[in-house]
C-alpha cells in the first residue's frame, strides 16, 4: 500500500529541492526526509509520528522503502519525471497535486520539519548537510555494524546519544529560535566540526 505521508514528503521535498538545486535525486530526497524526521524528534514528537521508517543503505546513507515506492508510484502517475539520468523533477501535475495535499491537516503538522530541513541549505551547502548527516550518532553507529536494522529505534544506545545532543542543543539555544532552521543548522555544523576534530581538545 502506498504510504500517504511518504507521498506528501516526496512531493514537498522534491519541489523545494528543485527550487534550490534545479532537480533532485532519490538519494538526496532520502537524506532530507531523514533530516526532517530527526527534526521532528528534536521538537519532541514521538517516534511513531513520522509514519515511515529508515534503514542504512549499502553506502551508509539513510534509505526509506516508503519514499522509494512513492517515487516509483509518482513516476508511474507522471507527477515526477526523470530529467537527466537519475535526476528527477516534479511535473506541473505533481505540483498541483501537492497543493491539494498541502491543505490536509495531517500534512500541515509535518510542514515545519520538512521546511526547516530544506531551508538549511540556504545557510550551509548541500555537501555539508550530506557530510554532517553521515556523522549523526545513529547513522554513524549503523555504519559500523554489518546487520541491517531500523535506524530510529528507541532501544538502541545511539538513539540515547542523539537525544543527549538534542538536549544539549536546546539548553545552549535557550529557546531563542521560534522555528527549527537555526537549531538544524547549528546541529549540522556541530556534527561537521566534530568530524573535523574541532572538539577533540
Amino acid at each position, binding site marked *: *500500500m502506498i504510504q500517504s505521508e511518504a*507521498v506528501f514528503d516526496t512531493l514537498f521535498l522534491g519541489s523545494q529541492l528543485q527550487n534550490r538545486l534545479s532537480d533532485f535525486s532519490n538519494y538526496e530526497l532520502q537524506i532530507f526526509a531523514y533530516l526532517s524526521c530527526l527534526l521532528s524528534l528534536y521538537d519532541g514528537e514521538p517516534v511513531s509520528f513520522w509514519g515511515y521508517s529508515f534503514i542504512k543503505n549499502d553506502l551508509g546513507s539513510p534509505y526509506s522503502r516508503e519514499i522509494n515506492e512513492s517515487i516509483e508510484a509518482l513516476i*508511474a502517475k507522471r507527477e515526477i519525471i526523470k530529467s537527466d539520468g537519475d535526476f528527477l523533477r516534479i511535473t506541473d501535475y505533481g505540483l498541483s497535486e501537492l497543493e491539494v495535499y498541502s491543505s*490536509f491537516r495531517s500534512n500541515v503538522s509535518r510542514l515545519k520539519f520538512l521546511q526547516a530541513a530544506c531551508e538549511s541549505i540556504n545557510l550551509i551547502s548541500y555537501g555539508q548537510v550530506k557530510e554532517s548527516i553521515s556523522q549523526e550518532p545513529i547513522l554513524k553507529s549503523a555504519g559500523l555494524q554489518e546487520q541491517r536494522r531500523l535506524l530510529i529505534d528507541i532501544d538502541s544506545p545511539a538513539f540515547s546519544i542523539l537525544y543527549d545532543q538534542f538536549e544539549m542543543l536546546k539548553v545552549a539555544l535557550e529557546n531563542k529560535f521560534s522555528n527549527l532552521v537555526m537549531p538544524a543548522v547549528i546541529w549540522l555544523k556541530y556534527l561537521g566540526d566534530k568530524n573535523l576534530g574541532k572538539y577533540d581538545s
Partner: protein
Amino acid sequence: MDKYNFPILTKIIIKNFSIYKKTNLITVNIKDGVFCLAGANGLGKSTFINIVNYGLTGIVRRPEAEFSQDNSIPKFYSRSKSFAVKYFDRRIDENLRDIASISIELTCGGKIFYIERNFFEPDALSKLEIYEDGINIIEDEQDLTPSDFDFIYKQEITKSIGLQDFDQFVFIQIFVLTFDESHQLLFWDNSLMERVLYLFFNLDPSKAKLADQLRKDVSTFESNMRNLQWDATQKQKELTSLINQLELSTNNTQLVDEEIINQYNDLTSALSDGLENIQKIESDVKECDLLLADFSLKLSSAKFEYDSLFSSSFNRDVSLEKDPAILSLLASIQSDVCGGKDPAHHFEQLKKLIWETKCPGNKIANDESSVKKLQELDEIIFRFKGDQDKIQERKLRLIKEYDNLRNVANEITSEIDEIEKNNENFRLNLYRPSDKQGLASFVNDIKIQIGQLLNYKKEESKKRDEKRLELKNLERELSSQYLTAEEFFMPIFTEYARSFLGLDINIFLQTYAKGATLVLEINDTERREKHQLSESQRYFIDIALRMALIQHSSLHANILIDTPEGSLDIAYESRAGKMFADFTKKGFNLIITANINSSMLLLQLAEQCKAAFMQLERMTEWTTLSEVQQQEQAIIEKAFVAIEKKLG
C-alpha cells in the same frame, strides 16, 4: 452399544503451501490401508499431519502445551484456536496467504463431506458440500457465509460421528486419532486418560461433558471454602487479640490522653476522606484509559480508511499493466485456471475495475470525489487526535493528583501507626470504661461475623459434597461400563501390545482421589512411572492403546502417526510394522509419515500390506532436498526401491 462413526479421509488437496516448493497443488487420493508419506528430515512431514488435522478441526495443537494445563476439553479447544494462524504464518509466503488452502473429502456416518479451509481463517470454510444419498444437503448455499459453512460443518460432523460437541471431536482427533511429534501419551497422563475413558467407555458423550463440569464445580466450591476459612481465621485472630487486651486493661488503669484520642480520630477521619478521593481518582483514571483506548481504535480505523482510500485513488492513474488491483485479479484467474475451475466469475469484476479506473470520463469524477472523501477523513483524524490529546492531558493531571493524595495518605498512616505504637492498648482505650457496652457489642459483632463465615463455608462444603457425589456416581458408572467393555476391549489391546512387546500385558482401571485412570501391568508388575519402560516401548504401547480404543469403539477410522520409527530400538522395528499391518487388516486406515531409511518398520509394513493396501508417496515429488540430502540421494533411492520391491 452404539459405535462412533469416525471420518474416513478419501482425498486431500493442499494448495499453495510454500514449504512444499515443487508444486502449488498437491492431490492425494487415500485408498484403504496405509498411506505413507516418506522423506528425509526437515521436508515438512510433521507439517503434513498438522495440515490434515487443521483441515478437519480448524486447530493446530500448540506443541509445548500439555492437556493437563487446560484440564478441560472445551478450554483446550478454545485455547488452541489462535495458534494455527501463527503456525502457518512462517510456512506460507505472504503473497499466497489468500489462496493457500486445504481441502478434504471424507465419508462419515453415511454422508460424504467436501470441505475447504484457508490456512488463515480457522473459523471459516471457503467450501462445504455434504452429500447424503447423492444429494447435497446444504440449502441456499449462495446465501451462506464461510462462517456459516464452518458452523454447519461442526454441527453435521459432530452428529454424524455420534458425539455431543465439536470440541469432543477435536479432542479425539488430536489426542487419540493422532500420534504426533509432541508424543503426548495417554498412559502416564491421568487428566488425558480420564477424558478418553469417559468418551470411549461410557459412550454417552454428554457424560464426559458433565464430568468435566462437575470437576470444575467441585474445584470452585473448594476454592470458596478455602477463602471463607481464611476470612474466619483472620476474624478469630482479631477477636482473640481484643479479648487479651481487655483482660490486660483490667490491671492497667492508665488511659490515653483525651487530646491524643481526638488527634487519632481526626487522623482516621482524614485518612478515610483521603482514601475516598484516591478511589475516585482511580476510577477517573480508568475512565480516561477506556476513552483513550476508544479513541486509539477510532483513530487507527480512520487512518486505515484514509490510507486505503489514498492508496486506491493513487493507483487509479497507474497504467493497466502495473495496477496492483488488476494484477491481484489476474492472479486469482490464474489460480482458478490452474486449479481446473471456471474463472468467469472474475471477469465482471475486472470489467468494472477497468471501467471505473481506466476510462477517462469516470476518472475525473472519481478523483474529485476521492479528494473530498480524503479531506473529510483528514478532518475526522484531526478531531480525534485533538480529543485524544485532551484526555491524555487529563489523565496526566489525575495521576499527579493521585500521587499527591497517596503521599498524604501515607503520611497520615505513619502518624496513626506512631500513636498506636506509643500508647499501649490504644485500640482498647478507644472504648472508654463508660463505653463497655460498645466494646461488648463490638466483640459480639465479630463473633456473629465468624459464625456467618463458617456457615457459608458449611453451605459451600455441602454443595461441593453434592457435586462430588454426582461425580462419584459418574465414576462408578464409568467403572461398571469399563468392566462390561473389558471383556471385549482387553483382548484387543493385549493382542496389539503383545505382538509389539512380546510380553504379557495387562491393564486395569483404577480410581483415585481426582478420578479414574488405566494402569499398565507388564509381567504382573505395575508400570506407573514413565522411566519403567524405554521411550520407544512407551510410544508403541500408547499407539497400541489408541488402536484398541478405536477398534473397540468404531468400525472404521483413520489414524495419523508421525515418524514413529524415530526412536525405535532396532529389535522392535519389524514387530511395530506388523502391529500396524494387523490394525489395517481389521479395516482401519493408517496415514503415516516416515523417514526414508533402512528401517524394518516400513519394510515389514510393505511386506504385510502389499501394494493393494499400501501407498508410498515420495516427498521429493512435493519439495526439494537440501544439499546434504541431495548428496545422499543414492542411498535414499536404494531405500525406496527396497520398500517398493516389498510392495510387489
